[in-house]
């Protein structure tokens, strides 16, 4: 023990000249001692390097998280529109054409080795809007500030616990400054993202709005047994500003590229459906809709509900947050589908995601 201390002092240059001389002499004379000292110094160096690298990695991780990918899509800063209106409009239409063209060209060339899986969040504010509308918007913006800016993305989510926990897909909320949920019954509620897992594409939101009064419980269950091939299922979601129903079956018990944690389903789903519930005949959640295969029509995917349950069990919640309880038996079994949907639709929300410029 004392020997190690001595070696450490030598390593950190804490020995005085005399001690140092004695140490080096011992190194020279005693082979075994030298071996031990060299080993220890190598170890200390490795340990320090480890610490140094860990700090650097943490710093980079922070920078990475602060990165805002949305800036890439910016073509022309807004203020110049007013000044050079017409010229810029022409230039922009060329730029737009190029962007869209490149986008499709790249997409096409990547198709062979890249994935044919497409996530289903809806791009509200994308390149798709016509140029006229963009111009119109800018004029309007100059005159009056709208109360709510249009959200960047939207998806679907559903309440899983009476005290305000909402499940949605990770990719819907992955880069967000603020998130709101909205439906007919509850109106617009502010939520915060309390948990997200890119691995399984599951995210958990918690309602932070004072308007929201805790409910006793939700009427439906989250099923923990796996679905079977050919089982009839249906979805509820917000691909438009209104809730939309979709009907189909489980067409495979594994997802895109044999992903064991999701189902393949044959239901026509659209951007905006992401994060919505996939429901079985008893009215229980059996999956979360999360994507489509782009090269096969009518093929969609949903994360399995047992994956969601596992996830919920392991969510590291703040000790001050309300407890997260989910039902494993529901009240909707035996009801007709129409009646199930009547109960269900109050608990399905449109998830609106905002992030800054």
């Amino acid at each position, binding site marked *: 023990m004392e020997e190690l201390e001595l070696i450490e002092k030598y390593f950190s240059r804490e020995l005085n000249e005399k001690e140092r001389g004695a140490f080096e002499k011992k190194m020279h004379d005693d082979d075994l001692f030298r071996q031990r000292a060299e080993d220890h110094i190598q*170890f200390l160096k*490795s*340990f320090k390097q*480890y610490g140094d690298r860990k700090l650097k990695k943490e710093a980079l991780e922070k920078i*990475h998280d*602060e*990165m805002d990918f949305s800036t890439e899509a910016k073509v022309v800063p807004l203020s110049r529109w007013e000044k050079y209106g017409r010229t810029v409009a022409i230039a922009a239409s060329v730029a737009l054409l190029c962007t869209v063209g490149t986008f499709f060209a790249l997409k096409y060339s*990547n198709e062979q080795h890249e994935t044919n899986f497409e996530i289903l969040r809806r791009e509200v504010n994308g390149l798709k809007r016509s140029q006229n509308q963009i111009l119109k918007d800018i004029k309007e913006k100059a005159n009056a500030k709208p109360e709510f800016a249009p959200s960047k993305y939207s998806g679907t989510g559903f309440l899983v616990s009476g005290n305000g926990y909402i499940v949605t897909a990770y990719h819907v909320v992955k880069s967000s400054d603020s998130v709101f949920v909205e439906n007919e019954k509850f109106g617009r509620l502010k939520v915060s993202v309390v948990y997200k897992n890119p691995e399984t594409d599951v995210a958990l939101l918690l309602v932070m709005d004072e308007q929201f009064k805790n409910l006793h419980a939700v009427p439906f269950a989250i099923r923990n047994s796996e679905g079977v091939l050919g089982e009839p299922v249906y979805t509820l979601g917000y691909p438009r500003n209104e809730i939309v129903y979709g009907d189909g079956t489980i067409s495979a018990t594994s997802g895109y590229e044999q992903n064991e944690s999701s189902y393949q389903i044959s239901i026509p789903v659209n951007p905006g459906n992401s994060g919505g519930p996939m429901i079985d005949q008893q009215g229980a959640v059996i999956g979360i809709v999360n994507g489509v295969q782009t090269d096969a029509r009518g093929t969609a995917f949903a994360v399995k509900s047992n994956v969601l349950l596992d996830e919920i069990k392991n969510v590291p919640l703040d000790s001050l947050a309300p407890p997260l309880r989910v039902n494993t038996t529901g009240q909707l079994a035996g009801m007709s589908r129409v009646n199930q949907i009547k109960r269900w639709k109050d608990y399905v929300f449109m998830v609106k995601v905002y992030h800054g410029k």
Partner: protein
Amino acid sequence: MHFLEEALIAELRKKNEAALKQLYQENYVMILKLVVNNSGTEQEAKDVYQEAIIHFYERLSQPEFELTCKIKTYLYAVCRKLWLQRLAQRNKFLRIEEGERVADVENAVHEMETKERNFAVMSESLDKLGEPCRSILENYYLKGMSMDQITEKFGYTNADNTKNQKYKCLQRLKKFFFEANK
């Protein structure tokens, strides 16, 4: 504030955090595309990229290091080589289009791999070691806390006990580390 190439290097040498941030954010998408278009995932792109950034940052702190090409070119060359090596380990051979040739990428990448392996081994050994040993050692050797501070923090009765405990922890960690390195 936006630094131009020369200024950026000078600021990085001064360990300016804003410069590091700019360096990171300016080049990430390029590497993301490189890896993702060549059978990698976003996570793998991030790993390769961060290793390259750390390497570049460390190299800059060596006064004798001189960059003979653009930063972008250097980072691309290093990441390309690194990614090719990762793919080779997975038995996948791919041709990735080469950018401009950059001197001494081979050595740089070799050095990076060694450092990364060392990091992984140490990280694993520390995981095996568990608490409170891990925190005691990290506090003492990495954060430079004194024995007295550690004694108080971990609730030992006196500094000698702590020292004893630290010694045992250290011996165990060394054992794990050298075993894994063999």
